[in-house]
């Protein structure tokens, strides 16, 4: 994977590696921010002061054109992907896909994966297995673990 490629952090990376992210300005400039991840983060914040902080982050990423927000096509394609996973359709490239009972829970991950792929970014996440299920449907999807990205902490 090209080291100069941009990346998208999953929610669990922001919460699990916040101290490292804070101490590395390079990360702030190289990353794209997913609106879905932002939603997950903001949904857990409570104070008005905290909301302002994330609002500012959102606006700046929007200004820099690094805010990834799923559009109507992304929602439609993601719905089809989740449906395929749920009903165990054959994927175009790798044959049968295992049945997944909780496929709808993967909706956010699928939206993150799709928008990252379209922006030519790779995803950094602790949920390698969940994201790995999308690979047959997103051949260009690249997923990296927190350990691989940050090293052992």
């Amino acid at each position, binding site marked *: 994977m090209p080291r100069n490629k941009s990346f998208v952090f999953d929610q669990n990376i922001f919460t699990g590696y916040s101290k490292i992210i804070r101490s590395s300005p390079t990360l702030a400039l190289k990353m794209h921010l997913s609106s879905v991840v932002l939603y997950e983060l903001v949904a857990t914040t409570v104070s008005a002061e905290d909301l302002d*902080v994330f609002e500012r982050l959102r606006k700046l*990423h929007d200004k820099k054109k690094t805010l990834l927000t799923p559009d109507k096509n992304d929602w439609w394609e993601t719905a089809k992907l989740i449906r395929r996973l749920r009903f165990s359709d054959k994927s175009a490239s790798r044959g049968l896909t295992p049945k997944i009972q909780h496929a709808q829970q993967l909706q956010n991950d699928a939206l993150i994966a799709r928008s990252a792929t379209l922006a030519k970014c790779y995803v950094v996440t602790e949920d390698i297995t969940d994201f790995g299920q999308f690979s047959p449907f997103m051949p260009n999807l690249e997923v990296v673990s927190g350990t691989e990205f*940050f090293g052992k902490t």
Partner: protein
Amino acid sequence: MEKSLKSKNGSSANEEKEVSSERKVPIIETLKPKKRYTKLEKELIEATIAAMDVLIKQKNAQE
């Protein structure tokens, strides 16, 4: 990533070894820092630090 996905699907031990040795250096250490920042970049760095401070504060409160 392509290699790691392949390895999950049953590649050889040699391939596994190749992948693990290739990834000894964490990606974060390969990212080149910029020497000069634009105003927007400075603001983005400050905003990211502030957001991470919120997450750190929340984590500390939970522990």
